[in-house]
């Protein structure tokens, strides 16, 4: 193919860029909740999220392994059956920074999330969901052990 004329080359590159999503409008994000994420205790993290009080609820289903062979990758799957759940936060009580993630669901999104988290040691994984202007919570213990030949 003889040298591509510059115009054609530019238009090809534009098409490629569009496909790769580079030309999408730059997405703005709300400020990262520094206070909550940098809290060193679960209680402070919840305060940082504006959670004054929360009641235990069986309508928050946490699927997580009882024993994780190592703390680098611990899959946590959360489903909220509370009507019009607005957000789900995942707090790992014994982590140096307990708040791991918080997701806000607009209409069209189910209150469900699956994410792999890191755990420094065996700990309770606590979930706080906001629904109908009130906060609900549930937790599950995950034990972290040494796997493999530990050598």
């Amino acid at each position, binding site marked *: 193919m003889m040298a591509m004329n510059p115009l054609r080359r530019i238009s090809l590159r534009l098409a490629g860029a569009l496909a790769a999503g580079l030309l999408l409008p730059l997405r703005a994000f709300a400020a990262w909740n520094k206070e909550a994420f940098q809290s060193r205790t679960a209680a402070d993290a919840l305060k940082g999220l504006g959670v004054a009080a929360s009641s235990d609820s069986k309508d928050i289903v946490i699927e997580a392994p009882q*024993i994780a062979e190592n703390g*680098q*990758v611990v899959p946590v*799957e959360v489903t909220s059956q509370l009507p019009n759940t607005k957000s789900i936060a995942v707090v790992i009580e014994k982590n140096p920074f307990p708040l791991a993630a918080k997701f806000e669901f607009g209409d069209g999104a189910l209150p469900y999330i699956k994410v792999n988290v890191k755990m*420094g040691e065996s700990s309770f994984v606590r979930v706080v969901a906001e629904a109908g202007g009130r906060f609900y919570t549930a937790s599950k213990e995950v034990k*972290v*052990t*040494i796997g*493999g030949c*530990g050598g």
Partner: protein
Amino acid sequence: MNRFAVLVVVLALGVSRADAQDTKKEIEKYQKMIADSSPVELFELQGETLWKKRQGPSNVSLKRCDLGLGAGELKGAYALLPRHFKDADRVMDLETRLLHCMVTLQGRSREEATKRVFGNADTPSEIEYLSAYIAGESRGTPMAPGSAHPKEAAAYELGRKLFFYRAGPWDFSCASCHGEEGKRIRMQDLPILSTPAAARPVVATWPAYRVSNSEFKTMQWRINDCYRQMRMPEPNYASDLTVAITTYLSVTGRGEPYRGPGTKR
């Protein structure tokens, strides 16, 4: 060096003596959950890029590398390895064959091509990416490593002897750990690799991504790291010895449809 010990604290006190059986069930549930959400696809994608990338003094890609089914043919090629290659008159596993193509097609020196064959979580090695991609192209194909050619039969026989050969200051052979039913090191179950039933699922899922250190591992690494823990000197990369062991394991586990690259602990 032991990243586990640094990051992971075992709950020393207050753990009720979990019955070993349900501990094992829980670990299996954990392994299934991590396999579902594994980033191993990313390694296959990067491997495809490297397969097509022009490299070396000859400035060509690996697309003309013959993995046994003809130049550039990838579909199902991995499942037929290790096998004998006429051009080199040698039995080769995937990594040995890739190295051969890097040297013969791309004109790279063996020394340069093997400078960094085992990567890490930050920068995986070229051959790890390539292994992920090429292995992925055999998904669904039953493993059928070479065994008819005299050199293939010899490699199998040598591999079998090596599997049971005890050496080094700790007198270990592969069979010391992979020789008896239902045994484990720490929480790690040890398949009896000398029997088809145990070898098949292993052979069908290597090479693999390891979640514990976010690293992609190949068979050459697996053999290398076993010998390290057996307190032996280091095996030469892609040597006849390593290919013989892989031949023995692959032939023992043949017939299983390949379903890797896998995701392991």
